[in-house]
Structure formats: C-alpha cells, structure tokens
C-alpha cells in the first residue's frame, strides 16, 4: 500500500502526457486521479497511524551490497507531510487547470507535477537513507523542469539552472553525509540510524556528517546564505510556486531536520549551525519580503522567513521547540499555499503582480479579498488564526532558550522584530492590493472574480486556517501529536494547544509584534528609501557571472594544460620513459653480466659506425628530405646486414624487402608533400627533445647490453626441439610464425589487410594538386616511361615470380616464407606500375585488390579453421611426407597453405596501398569501394 502510494503518482506521471490529445479537461482529470487515489490510501492509513500512532512499513531489496533498499515507512511525521503533499497537491492541480493558458502544453506540466509529487512522497516516506537521497534528487530534477516550464523566458531558464545547481550540490553533500552516517552506523535503515544517535554524535566524523547533511537541508529549504535561489524560482507558473516553493519542496529541508532530529540533534554544533542559520533566514526573509513589489516575490521571501523560523525552532534543541516547529510547518503550509493561489488569481485577473500597479481590488474581487485578508492575518499571526498559535509557541520557547550564553536575551528580541516585520508585509500585501484607490490602468482591465473552482482551493485552505486557529485541539491535536512524537522518536514533551494561556511574556511579545508591525507599515517610506540605498545585486546575474567566470577559468586551465600541440603530447608520453631510463642507469648493478661477449671484428665496427653516422645524418639532414630518405635506407641496409651476421637470415631478408617497399612508399608521398622543411622548434623545445632522446637512447642501449649479457632460460628450447617433430619444418622461426604462434601471424596479416582497406578509404576523393616543377623549380622531364626501364621491368617480372615461389616453398625449412615472397612479388608488380603507369597495368590486371587481400587472410584463417572439423583447436597444424613415383619424397604441411595465405595477403595489401598512392596523381573517376 505504501508502494502504491508512491507508485501511483510516479506511474500516473505518464498519464497526462498520454491523454493530452483528449483535451485539457481530461488532462487535469488524468493528473488528479492518481493523486486522489494516493490521497485516499493515505486517508485510509489515518486511523492506524494518527490514531494508534502505528508505523507502517514496506520494503523490497534493491541493492543490498550498497545498503540500498526500496524501504518505506509511514509514521506520524511522514503522514503529515504526505498529507500536505497530496492534499495541497490536489488543490494545486485543480487550481492549475484553470490557471494554465490554453496554449500551454498542460500534459507536460501535470506530468512534471505528478513526478514531483511522487518524488516528495518518496522523500517523506523513505525508510532507507540512500533511498531518501534518491527521491531527494528527484525532487530537484522535477522542480528544475517545472521552474523552466516556460522555457522561452530567459528568466525561467536562469532561475531553473540556479535552483538545480544549488539543490543539486546540496543533494551531493547529502549523499556524502548519508554514506558517512551509514558507514558509521553500519546500516542505512532509518530506524537503526535513529536508534543510534549517540554513536553518530560520538563519532569523530560527526561534524563532517552534520555539516554535509545541513548543507543539503539549507540549500533545499533556502536557508541563509543559500536563500537566493528561491525568489528566482518564482518565474515558474504560480501553481508551481504555490506547491513547490511554499508547501512542499522547500519543506523537504525542514522535513529532513525533523527526520534526523533524533540522530543528529542535541549537540552544540547542531544548535549553533541550525539556529543561527534559521535566525538569520527568519530576519533576512522578513526584511526582504517587506520591500518586494512583486506579490510572489513578497510571498517567496516570507516563505524563506518562515522556513527560517522553523529551522530556528529545530535548532533550539528543545523538544518543545521541535513540536512548535512541526506545528508551524502545518500552519505555514496552509496559509502560504492559499496566499500563493490568491496571488495567482490576482495575476490571472489583472495581468500584473506588481503591488504598485494594484489597489482597491476589493471592489472587483470581494471574495478573494476576504480570503486573502484572512490568510495574511494568519501569516501575520493574528489571534484566532492558526499562525497565531505556532507563533505563540515560538515566542514561548524563544524566551526559555538559555543558549547563546550571555546573549540569550537576543533570541526573543529578534523573534519579536521578525514578528513585527511579518505583520508589516502581511499588511502591505492586503492593504496595497485590495484597499486604497484603483489605478486607472487596472480599472480599464475590468478584473472580476475567477471561475469558482479556481477559487475553491483557496477557500478550503482559509477555512482550515480558521478551524485550526479556533479549535486547535480538535482539528490538529492528534496529527500534531503523532507527527511530533515521530519526530522526537517517541518522547513527547508537555504542551497545550489553546488559544489563551493567560497574560504572559509570549502574549506580550505578540502584541508588541502586532503593533510594531503596524507602525512599521505606517512609516515604511523611509525604510524603502533606506532599502533602496543598499546595493541589490540580482542573484541570477551574480550567479551567471560567477558561473561564466568559472567556465572561463576552467577553459583557461584546460587550454594551459592541453595546448593542442602534438609535440608536447609526445613529450609527455616520453618523459616517464626518460625518467625510468635515468633511474635504471643510476640503479644498474653491473652492465656487463657473466655471459661472455661475442668477439668483435673490424667489419662489425664499420657497420656500426655506418649505421650510427647515417642515423645522425638522417636527423641533421631531415629538412632536405630526399637525402634524409637515402640516409635512412642506409640504416635499413646495415640493420639487415646485422641480422644476417647475427644468425637471423629471415629477418635480414624481410628487412631488405620491406626496405624497398618503404622507399617506394615514401617516394610516392614525397611527390606531393613539400620537400623542404622549415625550422620552427624553439631552443627550449630542442633542448627538451635532446634530453628525452639522449636519455631514452642511452637507457635502451644499456638495458639491451644488460639483457644480452645476463642469460636466462627461456621457453625457446621447446620450439627448437619440437620444430621438426611437432611442426614439420626445419626453419624454427618460420615454424613459430606459421604454427607455434600462427595466431600472431594471422593477426599480423589482418593488420596488413586492415591497413590496406583503411588507407584505401583514407585516400578516397583526396584532391591534391600536382607540382608542375621539381623542388628546384625545374620542369619535369618529358619522357614518362623510359624504354630501358619498361623492357627490363617486364623481364624482371617472371623471374621475380619464380624467385617468390621458390622463397615461399622453402620457407618452412630454410630462410624465406610467405611474407618475403609476397613482398618480392609485390615489388615486381609495383615496378610494372613505375615503368608503365597505372592505366597500362590496370589494363592487364584487375585493379581492385580488396578481394585478393581478403582471400589471402581468408585462406590462412580457413586453414586454421579446418582443424576444428577434427575437433582440434583452431590453427592446429598437420603435415605428412608423401612419396610419389618419379617425384620422390616431399612434404605437405597445412602450414604451407597458411603461408600461402600470408603470401597472397602481402601481395594484395602492398599493391592496394602503393597503387592507391600512385593513383592519387592519376585523374580518373572511380566509384567508392
């Protein structure tokens, strides 16, 4: 049933949006229905909860690991708030139906309203702190949507953002506080938490918890110094203001104070923080309210002030004060909601909310006038009205408070002052609007009473004010008792709900406040002048300004850290490496290990010198790019010779072949790119780069030396032993590539294939203009395809193919293999492009190499897949030695097929890449592949 109560508005939130097509009335009904049902459910709980003071609970597990559960409780306090939420909610819906303009999308409005209603219900009925936070944040979101309802108004957007930012921040703080509490208590279950108040207060983190929670509370309830968002939330439609910013959302804060009162209250810290915030808010709100010209503004500030009052009461740390607080919550909700609606009616009928443009309205809306007057009297705390009672209580506890040490007399004084102010602004609300003479503009507007059902809610609330005010014990006694006892977790203090307590200090204070207020209003003009003389920065402007500065600062910091220069990014990446290397060099025990050095000879020295010199030359001559290219190919040549010398013929072959293709590649690119670079790096950059390169180079060199001279046993012995018996090949390197680690090779050729496909896509419709002159400004030579080159390249092709086949076949047993063979083939074919041009070649071979690449990888992959048929893992190899007459003994190995796949891939990929680059200069249209 508790679930139902929360779920109804939650799910019902969809309803209005859905029935929107059916017209405004049905929208309103659809909105009212879930609320009404929930209300009935609540009412049905009254006998038990209010009558017997029972506590209804319901719970479902959600995230036990985090202590989050869908747990609800309905005790007196929850019931009271639920009543406010649902009761006033219903009235607001009724009112809103008439308030909203025909053009406004009512569906959206009521959906948000119901969503908010559900969230509030969740907050007040949550029996799990984390769940409470969940709903708490939901109220922020839905109120953001409601405030920003008229999204085309800048004020609405700003107000909404400001509200969301503050309440959102509060919510985060609350979350942190709640988690801290939960971790201290060891549970997020509300009951447990309320029981273990002493443990919480004793905990070293209590101050932190308290401040976090209070931050949440104060932001939500617009307590000083966070009050400024509330008035600007008034740009919301009046029903919203009436609902959120008088009756409910802002009460969520004080609700939490009440809820956690047993767990957190009772310490000096609590008193200082809560009561001083409350007191400040009380006075500030009352003062500001007096000077508002906007009706809703006035009400908003008075709301702030009353919330301050409630907060102050909770802060006083006496159970009586807590009771008073709860009582005032009830009263304030009733009169403030009715006043908001009255203001809405006035706005609706006159088209303005500016007090200065209003007056004498009693002639046009007599009934509304009466209602508003009564309600404001309640607000002012005039006897026989509910406001009076709670104010009396307030004064009573204020006089009894012994805190603030020597300043204990301060509280009552300020209380009276606040009371006086509230009388003053109430008076202003009534007198300036309904009495005095009518401004001509207004008269022209011909205001009249609103439709009955728009006024009815106000009437209901005002009647409540009276009833409670006159017969408190009857109409509010049980409710107050239940709520208060729930707040105090059982123990109720002694208090009496009577209009007359005899002549005592509180009564005197009331009288003083009453007449003081009247005087204040009478002589308000100097006060207005005084007020006007103060600087009044508008909160949204300040807020936006701060926000903009913050964003600007953030942007600046980001720009400062990330300046968008790749050079710096790479430097950042390499800096740790350099540092590591320096550390390694420093900590290196012995560079030369026990392993004997292999003998050096002149030739080796010579090769090393050649390589080093060429590498350095590459760096120095990098700006003369062709020369740099030649230099780097010298390095490549030497590297392959080194591989050869150090018993790695396969590497040497591969390196040599790749070398040639790379040169072709770079030549192709160099045609388009500028051939001379410019000097740009600053000297600081250069020194930084030198530091990085030298330290990393030295480090890597020394590490290599260290590793080479410190032998260790590796898994390689296995490969050497199993190459022939297990892999059927004598060339262990090749067997590793196609068998032991064939999976790597499959990935490797896939990389090649992807690169080819990617480059193809990358260079699609890339229009580069062709240089007409060479770097020295010379026209290019006339002859496109020199005769000798053409003929020889044709002669080379078949030979190269033959050699490729030879290298491919022997690869398994001798240096060679698919990759080298593929490169040889590719080079021979690219040579055809070079010698005869694209058109000539593409007239002779299919010019789309994608299928070739794909089929290559496919062949290798399928070879691997075949083993699955025999339920062997992917890539399990097999081989056998056949004996044919005449041919003799020869070997067939699945690995060879795999290598063939490698071969095809390499041929295809290399051709795809180089031909694509070559075609860049060939003007022709081809459809995208």
């Amino acid at each position, binding site marked *: 049933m508790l679930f139902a109560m929360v779920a109804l508005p939650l799910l019902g939130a969809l309803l209005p949006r859905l029935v929107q097509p059916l017209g405004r009335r049905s929208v309103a009904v659809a909105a009212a229905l879930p609320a009404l049902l929930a209300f009935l459910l609540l009412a049905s709980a009254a006998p038990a909860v209010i009558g017997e003071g029972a506590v209804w609970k319901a719970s479902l597990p959600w995230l036990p690991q985090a202590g989050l559960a869908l747990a609800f409780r309905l005790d007196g306090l929850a019931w009271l708030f639920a009543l406010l939420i649902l009761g006033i909610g219903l009235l607001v819906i009724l009112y809103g139906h008439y308030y909203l303009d025909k053009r406004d999308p009512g569906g959206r409005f009521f959906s948000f309203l119901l969503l908010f209603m559900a969230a509030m219900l969740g907050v007040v009925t949550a029996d799990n702190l984390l769940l409470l936070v969940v709903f708490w944040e939901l109220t922020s979101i839905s109120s953001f949507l409601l405030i920003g309802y008229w999204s085309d108004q800048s004020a609405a957007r700003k107000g909404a953002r400001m509200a969301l930012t503050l309440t959102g921040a509060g919510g985060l703080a609350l979350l942190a506080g709640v988690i801290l509490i939960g971790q201290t208590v060891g549970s997020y279950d509300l009951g447990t938490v309320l029981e273990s108040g002493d443990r919480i207060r004793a905990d070293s983190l209590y101050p932190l918890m308290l401040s976090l929670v209070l931050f949440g509370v104060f932001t939500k309830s617009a307590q000083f110094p966070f009050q400024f968002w509330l008035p600007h939330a008034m740009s919301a439609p009046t029903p919203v203001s009436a609902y959120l910013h008088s009756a409910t959302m802002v009460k969520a804060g004080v609700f939490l104070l009440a809820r956690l009162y047993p767990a957190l209250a009772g310490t000096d810290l609590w008193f200082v923080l809560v009561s001083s915030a409350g007191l400040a808010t009380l006075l500030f709100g009352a003062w500001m309210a007096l000077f508002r010209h906007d009706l809703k503004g006035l009400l908003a500030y008075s709301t702030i002030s009353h919330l301050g009052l409630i907060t102050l009461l909770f802060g006083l740390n006496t159970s009586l004060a807590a009771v008073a607080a709860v009582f005032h919550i009830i009263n304030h909700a009733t009169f403030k909601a009715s006043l908001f609606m009255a203001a809405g009616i006035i706005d609706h009928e006159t088209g303005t909310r500016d007090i200065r443009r209003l007056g004498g309205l009693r002639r046009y809306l007599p009934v509304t006038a009466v209602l508003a007057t009564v309600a404001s009297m309640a607000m002012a705390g005039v006897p026989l009205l509910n406001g009076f009672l709670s104010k009396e209580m307030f004064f009573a506890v204020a006089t009894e408070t012994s805190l603030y040490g020597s300043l204990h007399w301060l509280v009552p004084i300020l209380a009276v002052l606040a009371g006086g102010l509230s009388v003053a602004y109430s008076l202003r609300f009534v007198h300036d609007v309904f009495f005095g003479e009518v401004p001509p503009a207004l008269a022209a507007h011909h205001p009249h009473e609103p439709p009955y059902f728009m006024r009815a809610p106000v009437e209901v609330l005002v009647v409540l004010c009276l009833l409670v005010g006159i017969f408190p014990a009857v109409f509010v006694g049980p409710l107050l008792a239940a709520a208060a006892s729930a707040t105090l977790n059982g123990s109720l203090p002694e208090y009496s709900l009577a209009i007359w307590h005899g002549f005592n200090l509180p009564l005197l204070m009331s009288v003083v406040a009453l007449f003081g207020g009247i005087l204040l209003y009478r002589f308000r003009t100097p006060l207005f002048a005084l007020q006007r003389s103060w600087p009044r920065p508008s909160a949204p402007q300040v807020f936006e300004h701060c926000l903009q500065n913050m964003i600007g600062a953030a942007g600046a910091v980001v720009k400062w850290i990330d300046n*968008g*220069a790749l050079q710096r990014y790479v430097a950042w990446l*390499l800096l740790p490496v350099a540092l590591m290397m320096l550390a390694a060099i420093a900590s290196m025990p012995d560079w030369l290990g026990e392993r004997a*050095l*292999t*003998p050096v000879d002149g030739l*080796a020295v010579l090769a*090393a010198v050649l*390589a*080093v010199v060429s*590498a350095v030359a590459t*760096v120095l001559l*990098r700006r003369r790019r062709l020369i740099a*290219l030649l230099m780097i190919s010298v390095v*490549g040549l030497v*590297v392959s010779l*080194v*591989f050869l*010398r*150090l*018993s*790695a*013929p*396969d*590497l040497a072959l*591969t390196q040599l072949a*790749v070398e040639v293709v*790379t040169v072709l590649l770079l030549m192709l*690119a*160099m045609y*388009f790119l*500028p051939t001379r*670079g410019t000097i*740009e790096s600053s000297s600081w950059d250069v020194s930084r*780069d030198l530091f*990085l390169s030298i330290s990393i*180079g030295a480090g890597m*060199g020394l590490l*290599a*030396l260290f*590793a*080479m001279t410190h032998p260790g046993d*590796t*898994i*390689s012995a296995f490969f050497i032993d199993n*190459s022939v018996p297990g892999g059927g090949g*004598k060339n262990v*390197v090749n067997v*590793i*590539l196609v068998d032991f680690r064939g999976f790597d090779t499959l990935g*490797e050729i896939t990389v090649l294939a992807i*690169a080819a496909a990617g*480059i193809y896509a*990358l*260079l699609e419709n*890339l*229009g580069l203009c062709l240089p007409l002159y060479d770097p020295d400004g010379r026209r290019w030579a006339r002859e496109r395809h020199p005769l000798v080159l053409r003929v020889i390249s044709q002669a080379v092709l078949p030979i190269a193919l033959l050699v490729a086949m030879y290298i491919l076949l022997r690869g398994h047993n001798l240096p060679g293999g698919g*990759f080298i063979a593929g490169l040889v083939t590719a080079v021979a074919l690219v040579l055809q492009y070079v010698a005869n041009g694209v058109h000539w070649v593409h007239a002779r071979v299919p010019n789309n190499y994608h299928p070739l690449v794909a089929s290559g990888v496919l062949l290798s992959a399928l070879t691997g897949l075949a083993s699955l048929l025999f339920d062997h893992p992917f890539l399990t190899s097999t081989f056998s030695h056949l004996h044919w007459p005449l041919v003799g003994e020869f070997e067939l190995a699945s690995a060879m097929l795999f290598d063939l796949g490698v071969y095809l891939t390499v041929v295809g*990929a290399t051709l795809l890449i180089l031909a*694509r680059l070559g075609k860049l200069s060939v003007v022709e249209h081809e459809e995208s592949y």
Partner: protein
Amino acid sequence: MEILLAIMIAALTGCGVYLILRLRTFPVVLGLTLLSYAVNLFLFSMGRLLENAPAVIGASELHADPLPQALVLTAIVIGFAMTAFLMALALRAWGEFGSDHIDGRTDELDPEQRP
C-alpha cells in the same frame, strides 16, 4: 659485439625519438621508421647473440633463440603497415589543411607550397 649492438640501438632510438618530436609529418614518419629499426634490434637482442647459429635445424649445432626473431618479423610487418598508414594520413592531412604541420597549422607556409 654486444656493445656495438647496444651502441647502435642507443643511436637509432635516440635519433628516432628526436625525429618523432619534430613539427612536420615527414620527419615524424622518418623518426618512427628509425625507432622501429631500433625496436627490432632491441627485441632481437633480447634473445642474446649467437654467431653462425641460425635457428635452422641441421644447419648448425648451436641455435640462436628463434622466438625473438619471430616476434621481430611480426613487428616488422606491423611496423610497415603502420608507416604506410601514417604516410597516407600525412597526405590526407596535407590535402585537408594545406600544411604538413603535425597540428595542421597553416601559418608560416610559403603560398606556392600549398596544394
């Protein structure tokens, strides 16, 4: 021999790193090429050095560690693919913003060099 190889690795790595830190795409490509040479030598040297001991069964009694060789082969292929892609990307960048600056800055570029 180890010392010589170490020196080569050091030199190639250093030069490669320095070139990678340049401002134009072409030197960067050269730098990565140099660096991959260095990496290959380095990876290869991790199998320790042996002369006249190719990892071919029956060709010699001693065999150099074949695993790093296989790894280097894979590395060479992948390196080639990557160099090719980067080169193509450099062309694309040159075509897109008429500058071979690695950040695509078009200032300080003499006009007739624009594509």
